[in-house]
């Protein structure tokens, strides 16, 4: 650690140059994963590049009918953005389940995503909401749907020198909303043993026009359960449709078995939470 350097660039271009120059560099957002890993000796970056001095990466912007959450935006700031909280209550509630107030005053959703923990709370919510990661790098800018970014625990699809500059969410759509719930052994300050996000759009007659359901902590990375969403489209959320949705959720669960929750328990609870979040997202969509 003694040879590590610390940089606080003011622009995305400077950050890119620093990352390109030092292959052992790591990006620092809120540091709530990175600093823990550095202190435990799990990682020893040659350089730390703080994103929080890049003005363009701080805060939430409404842009081209969507929301752009800068990669340096703390989770508590998402709650304070009324339009974002109204359009994507599920993403905002997921981000604000992370840790404690102290942790959320630092933690970012981009960091939650790039840390690539299977249990990252905001990730299933972002996937359900159709979030896209905006990426800067030596080959220029590109975009990647959030579900394609984590590859395995701790590994992402980011190429060397690339980093996430922002998360883009769709704008507020009529009769559309989302929800996220997780199950933890403790109420606060615990890691999810399963987490489920759902985003629902209703047609004028109250039937399901679109549905996206995503699962966390039941596999090596968070997944979009496409068949689960498809099972609801065109239905009026009748019991049979909800049963098919729940079966499709269970079909994609490949959880680990550990002291915090057996594989069978996690799988059963994924279906329970999926039913709950679909119900909440549907109610919210009806009011939206």
């Amino acid at each position, binding site marked *: 650690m003694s040879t590590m350097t610390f940089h606080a660039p003011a622009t995305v271009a400077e950050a890119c140059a620093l990352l390109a120059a030092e292959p052992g560099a790591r990006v620092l957002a809120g540091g709530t994963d990175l*600093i823990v890993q550095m202190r435990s000796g799990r990682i020893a970056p040659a350089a730390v590049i703080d994103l929080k001095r890049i003005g363009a990466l701080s805060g939430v912007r409404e842009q081209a009918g969507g929301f752009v959450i800068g990669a340096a935006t703390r989770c508590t700031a998402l709650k304070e953005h009324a339009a974002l909280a109204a359009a994507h209550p599920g993403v905002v509630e997921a981000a604000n389940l992370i840790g404690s107030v*102290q942790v959320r005053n630092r933690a970012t959703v981009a960091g939650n995503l790039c840390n690539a923990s299977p249990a990252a709370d905001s990730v299933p919510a972002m996937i359900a909401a159709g979030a896209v990661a905006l990426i800067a790098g030596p080959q220029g800018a590109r975009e990647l749907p959030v579900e394609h970014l984590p590859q395995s625990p701790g590994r992402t699809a980011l190429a060397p020198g690339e980093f996430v500059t922002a998360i883009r969410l769709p704008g507020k759509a009529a009769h559309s909303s989302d929800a996220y719930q997780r199950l933890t052994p403790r109420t606060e*300050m615990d890691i999810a043993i399963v987490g489920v996000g759902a985003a629902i759009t209703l047609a004028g007659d109250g039937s399901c026009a679109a549905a996206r359901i995503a699962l966390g902590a039941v596999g090596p990375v968070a997944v979009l359960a496409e068949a689960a969403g498809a099972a609801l489209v065109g239905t009026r959320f009748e019991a049979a449709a909800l049963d098919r949705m729940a079966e499709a959720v269970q079909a994609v669960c490949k959880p680990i078995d550990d002291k915090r929750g057996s594989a069978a328990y996690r799988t059963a609870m994924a279906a329970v939470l999926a039913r709950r979040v679909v119900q909440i997202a549907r109610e919210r969509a009806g009011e939206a």
Partner: protein
Amino acid sequence: MKMAVSTTVNGDPRAFLCEPGETLLEALRGTLGLTGAKEGCGTGDCGACTVMLDGEMVCSCLVLAPEAEGRRVETIEGVAEGSDLHPVQRQFLEHGALQCGFCTPGFIVAAKALLERDPDPSEHDLRYWLAGNLCRCTGYDKIVRAVQDAAAEMRQQARGDAA
């Protein structure tokens, strides 16, 4: 190589040198001699190291010292005004809301931050706000009562000031 950091601590400009990988907690307790914030875990779990950074409470064990450049840091040492204890501090004493006292600086900084934003929090909101502060001795009830009474005292004071 050491880095030079200029910051404001409890209202006073402070400049110090630190290693790039040093935490703000280490800089406060070591170089700056402010040993009120404690290291209970070093992993963001216990809140004993809670300080205010640009007006938001954070775990100083999860902030790198160079990040404090140009920022405002407030610690437990700045909570009392001279020998006048803050109502939260006084109520902790009244209620005996501490035993070993290791967690107390973090609880007081966090509770004060809550009451500045919400003068009349429900018990539910108060307990959630303090969920990132752990105490291994007292049990949380006395702490919650102390913060509630401090809130009442501060509301009364505010009414008195307004009248």
